[in-house]
């Protein structure tokens, strides 16, 4: 089993961010299918998001199996696990980004403030304004910095005047810690910034629409250590106002920024708990193996 897992990871490593393709999933499917119960407390009191029995299928292959998990208010929830374990797929369920992938099917209830956002009749447009997302690779639009940040408020009609927009842009950039660096060149293209700045621009762009939850999919994997430190600092500040779910490859990062940590393995949620407890005293063998570096 050890070897087959390693193979899976090797394959997956090449397509870290993309939805796992068929080959991966078939390999996943052939791994022995013991039913894995989640260890630890997946529920919190007064959750922002509550997920009940989430299953995700790509065509016939199952990528997420029966996951139950809560996201608390003003907390950073880290999701860790080997590549191809489904943590990104799970993250993308929370703002229905999986809708954009052909052949992807999500079952189960996802309650955002007690409303099931996985229901068919839910309009994804306001939902995604409520649950923002930051991607692995910085993806600023090929427009000016100002327009990048103003994009969301503009399409949603959140500002009535140019002055208000200016205000939103400034406050968002300030909160993303980017204002001082870019205030003199707001009309320059966002693609001209450095990688770390671009990622913070994307964060500013996300918070400009005033979401309630921010999803971050390995936001620092393409960045250098200094930029990473800045973003981690930023995440900690943003927690005051938002709930944040972060998928990360780096266990150190999870330990630094999160309050709770969830460990995914081959589509199962293996263990979830306080970050400190997960990293110092994991209860599940797989979690321990992963954290101690036996694989991953």
């Amino acid at each position: 089993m050890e070897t087959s897992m390693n193979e899976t990871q090797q394959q997956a490593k090449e397509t870290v961010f993309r939805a796992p393709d068929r080959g991966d999933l078939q390999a996943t499917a052939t791994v022995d299918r013991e039913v894995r119960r989640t260890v630890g407390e997946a529920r919190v009191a007064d959750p922002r998001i509550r997920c009940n029995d989430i299953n995700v299928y790509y065509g016939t292959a199952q990528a997420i199996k029966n996951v139950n998990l809560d996201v608390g208010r003003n907390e950073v929830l880290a999701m860790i696990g080997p590549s191809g374990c489904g943590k990104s797929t799970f993250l993308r369920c929370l703002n229905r980004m999986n809708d954009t992938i052909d052949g992807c099917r999500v079952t189960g209830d996802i309650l955002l403030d007690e409303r099931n956002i996985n229901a068919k009749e839910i309009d994804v447009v306001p939902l995604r304004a409520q649950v923002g997302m930051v991607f692995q690779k910085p993806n600023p639009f090929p427009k000016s910095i100002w327009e990048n940040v103003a994009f969301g408020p503009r399409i949603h009609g959140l500002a009535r005047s140019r002055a208000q927009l200016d205000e939103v842009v400034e406050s968002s950039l300030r909160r993303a810690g980017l204002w001082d660096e870019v205030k003199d060149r707001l009309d320059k293209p966002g693609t001209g910034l450095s990688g770390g700045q671009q990622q913070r621009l994307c964060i500013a762009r996300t918070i400009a629409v005033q979401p309630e939850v921010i999803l971050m999919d390995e936001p620092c994997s393409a960045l250098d250590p200094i930029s990473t430190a800045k973003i981690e600092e930023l995440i900690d500040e943003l927690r005051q106002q938002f709930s944040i779910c972060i998928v990360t490859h780096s266990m150190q990062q999870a330990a630094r920024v999160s309050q709770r940590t969830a460990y995914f393995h081959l589509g199962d949620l293996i263990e979830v708990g306080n970050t400190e407890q997960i990293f110092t005293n994991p209860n599940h063998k797989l979690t321990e193996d992963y954290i101690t570096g036996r694989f991953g």
Partner: protein
Amino acid sequence: MNQLILIFVLLLLSLAAYQMGRRRAYGLVDGQLRKLHSLPVYYGLYAAMWCLLPALLVLIAWTAFDGAIISHLVVGQLPESLHGADAGSINLLLNDIRNVRMGLVPPESADPVVVAAAQHWDHLQRIGYAALAVVVLILAVLGAIFTLTRIHPQQRARNAVERLVLVMMMAAASVAVLTTVGIVLSVLFESILFFRLVPVTEFLFGTSWSPQMAMRADQVGSSGAFGAVPIFVGTALISAIAMVVAVPIGLLSAIYLSEYAAPAFRSVAKPLLEVLAGIPTVVYGVFAVLVVAPAIRSWGMSLGLDVASESALAAGLVMGVMIIPFVSSLSDDVINAVPQSLRDGAYALGATPSETTRKVVLPAALPGIVGSIMLAISRAIGETMIVVMAAGLSANLSFNPLESVTTVTVQIVTLLTGDQEFDSPKTLAAFALGLLLFLVTLGLNVIALRVVNKYREQYE
């Protein structure tokens, strides 16, 4: 015909040379191939190539130039009264001679001088063929003997063959360059002759075009008018109508197919659009003449408008339809090159698909789309058959799409088809228009390709 037989004989000879070369190499080492530098096949190929290639080159050169040489000789032999006459009358004479030779004019009704010249021509041609056959065969045999006698085990036959093959491939690759050079030279040469008769400024800025006058009188350019502005305007008008049809339809189709359509629909609609691209332009021309032009005319009449039967609108409309698939497939490529991450970024902010497309994808793809539209314009300007069939001949300086206008390509075709003297300003004008057409489309292509390539690199 004779050449074909000769080629066949040459092929047989080189096949023989190949066999002999191979056998000889094999025999030299008594079948111990290790002692040979190359496989026996290469010795055979080497001999065959030397047998075939020089002879073939001579054959092609002769076929290309025999007409010119013989006509020169025949003209030289003609009586003094005709000798030294200007180029035009010599051409006429050559035409007569050819007609007699082809049997189009019975010898008894032709000028005896011409008949004699025709016989002389045939005589020269027979001699030429005989000489050619002898030279070619001798060359082939010599080539074969030369290589066959030199075969020895240490000879690097493979390297020699490969070098020769490489040279041949290089020659093949340079055909494209030669074509361009040929186009430029041939068009430029005639254009210079034309601009000696008609000043460039008159051609580019004159507003009156009536080349037919010049043909009747034998004097040069002065009698006809060669101001090409009405033609440029006509070309621009028809191309503009075509783009008004093709760009929105093509672009929106591409957007719908790449951003909205279900895979099943796409797999049906895309090939159907490509069928539109595969239909020959002459078919579009027929469609314009038989269906669209009458429809527009009767529609105009019902509105009380006076529509010319060869209106710019009909030609432009059909040309637009022809260009739709061109625009849509190019834009499709360009739109697909926009990284998915940008779409994801917009969707994650809560943008609707149309907002994503209009405000993120299209602006990102804009340079590429501009490039494809430029390629489409160059296509429209150079399109010939639709306008030849559906647009007019008379050069009206008009921006009214219901009137009849003419285009550069229409003028080239009308000036060059039918009886022509090669040196009249009328035919030369066609080459000047050709030069202009070539330069404009080339310019558009170069810029467009550069824009598109730059754009592609940006997302690679």
